[in-house]
């Protein structure tokens, strides 16, 4: 409850974690607001079906609020003149404002429980935050957005927030590195997926570092770090201790 989880990937694609969290929280009966900036609804829907969850059904029942970034962007740029009073969550694209307030309002409105809602805690899922930088938002604006989300969803509504960002070791993208470092400091849990240092391998797709940031809540505690390796399959991901993949044993 009230946790901010950061999903971070380096030299590999950590989106399988996003799919996992999406189906996990939906199965648990939570109300989910999913800000999907990079892929279409059908992509997530097809994978979720393999994991045993129907996104369309969840959406109909009001359990899932799905913001499809790509579609929203097209509507903003190609749509007819907006009616007064209605603004797109991605308003910052048109340059009229430089902050992500519209996006935050969208999140807040979707997750505020209404009278007839009977879902368990609210959850905000974002895939992925680095895209906002590519679209012209300043890193400060993005950090403000995550801060507001953390305050309202985690603290006020006692829900969880899960956010995905990309990062690279020798990245020259300073804005992105700034964003990622700052988010790391504010997260309760960091799931960091990396490609293997020794290169590509068919049986081990990467390694995941799980960092429980106990030092965030209590001053004297040290962060707990665990490292596993994983292999992604069609419907499942198997985790194992380092060096003990099925291909080796």
């Amino acid at each position, binding site marked *: 409850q009230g946790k901010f989880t950061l999903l971070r990937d380096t*030299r*590999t*694609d950590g*989106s*399988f974690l996003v*799919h996992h969290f999406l189906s996990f929280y939906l199965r648990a009966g939570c109300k989910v607001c999913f800000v999907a900036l*990079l*892929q*279409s609804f*059908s*992509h997530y829907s*097809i*994978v979720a079906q*393999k994991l045993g969850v129907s996104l369309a059904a969840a959406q109909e029942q009001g359990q899932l609020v799905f913001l499809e970034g*790509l*579609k929203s*962007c*097209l509507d903003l*740029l*190609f749509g007819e003149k907006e009616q007064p009073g209605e603004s797109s969550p991605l308003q910052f*694209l*048109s*340059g009229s404002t430089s902050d992500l307030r519209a996006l935050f309002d969208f999140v807040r409105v979707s997750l505020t429980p209404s009278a007839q809602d009977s879902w368990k805690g609210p959850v905000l899922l974002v895939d992925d935050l*680095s*895209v906002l*930088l*590519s*679209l*012209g938002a300043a890193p400060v604006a993005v950090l403000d957005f995550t801060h507001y989300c953390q305050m309202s969803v985690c603290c006020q509504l006692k829900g969880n927030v899960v956010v995905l960002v*990309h990062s*690279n*070791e020798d*990245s*020259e*993208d*300073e*804005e*992105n590195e700034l964003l990622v470092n700052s988010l790391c400091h504010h997260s309760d849990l960091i799931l960091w997926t990396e*490609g*293997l*240092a*020794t*290169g*590509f*391998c*068919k049986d081990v*797709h*990467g390694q995941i570092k799980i960092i429980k940031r106990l030092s965030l809540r209590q001053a004297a505690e040290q962060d707990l770090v665990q490292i596993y390796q994983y292999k*992604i*399959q*069609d*419907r499942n*991901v198997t985790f194992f201790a380092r060096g003990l993949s099925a291909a080796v044993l």
Partner: protein
Amino acid sequence: VFTEEDKYGLYSNLLFKYFLAEGVVCGHDLFVASAKEHPDNILKELPAPLLDDSYGKELGDEGAAKSEDFQDSMKIAWRYQNLPKMEASPTTHTKFGHYYDISKKMSPELCQSVKWHSFYLHEELSSEPAMRAWNMNSGYAKLLQSLQRIISQEGFDGSDPQKKQRNVLRIGIQSLGSILWGDDVCCSDCPEDPHSLTKFLYVLRGLLRKSLSACIITVPTHLIQNKAIMERVTNLSDMVVGLESFIGSERETNPLYKDYHGLVHVHQIPRLNSLICDVSDTKDLAFRLKRKLFTIERLHLPPDLSDTVSRASKQDLAGSAKLLSSGCGAVAIGKRHLDF
């Protein structure tokens, strides 16, 4: 599909034309956009498709000759006899797509058989369509508007339920990001509007996702100095392929690469609608341009047969071999390599 151009643009142009030619042969509609040369000229230069029989026979002959050799049992390396023969080039069994003869041009009748739309930047700039404040480079904005217009008019986005036959739109955009498009991202380290290119790609992605279309873009990445933009562009693309030609570089004379004209780097492969992506066994691909064909093959290291193998040349080869297995972004890229 995002192709990083090689230095002189020769080979990436070839890939670009292959993509469009495949569209013509499959009966797809085409949309060609360029700021460099008029799309009409591009379309006149498409390679002619090879009739199935002739190519199949050619490859069949080669294949037959090879298999005869391999029937002889190996004497020294007998342990390797049981391994499957390594297929360097596509076999006759797997027929996916068509083959083309680049020494011949596609016939005008075949070209005319499909519907195609063109966007030549310099022509479009003179016209003045209604433009809202898009906060983006005007060349890119016009291209997006034109694309969106074609997609909705021709019904590629399924907006016209009357249309029974749904077709695919193949979009080709040449040399995006170059100075000819009005974007200075290729000239300076701190471009005026660093987000134009990435915003363009995002909106394009949206358009592609909601319609039946596929797009190939070639970009002269060797000119882009701001690496941050390249990283963002890679993240926004489904598939990224880099072509590195050997022309003018020291690798041209390197004995390691004597059979090939360049390397193919697959930086990213699409991971759509699934948790996994289709990763092939090997990451080392090279291309070569024969008189009639452009082939992409697995890179073989030639056997080290010389008597006097000096230290220097061995290290040289090892250095090049290190660059080969650099891995694929969607799965893993390693920096350190285990030395044996």
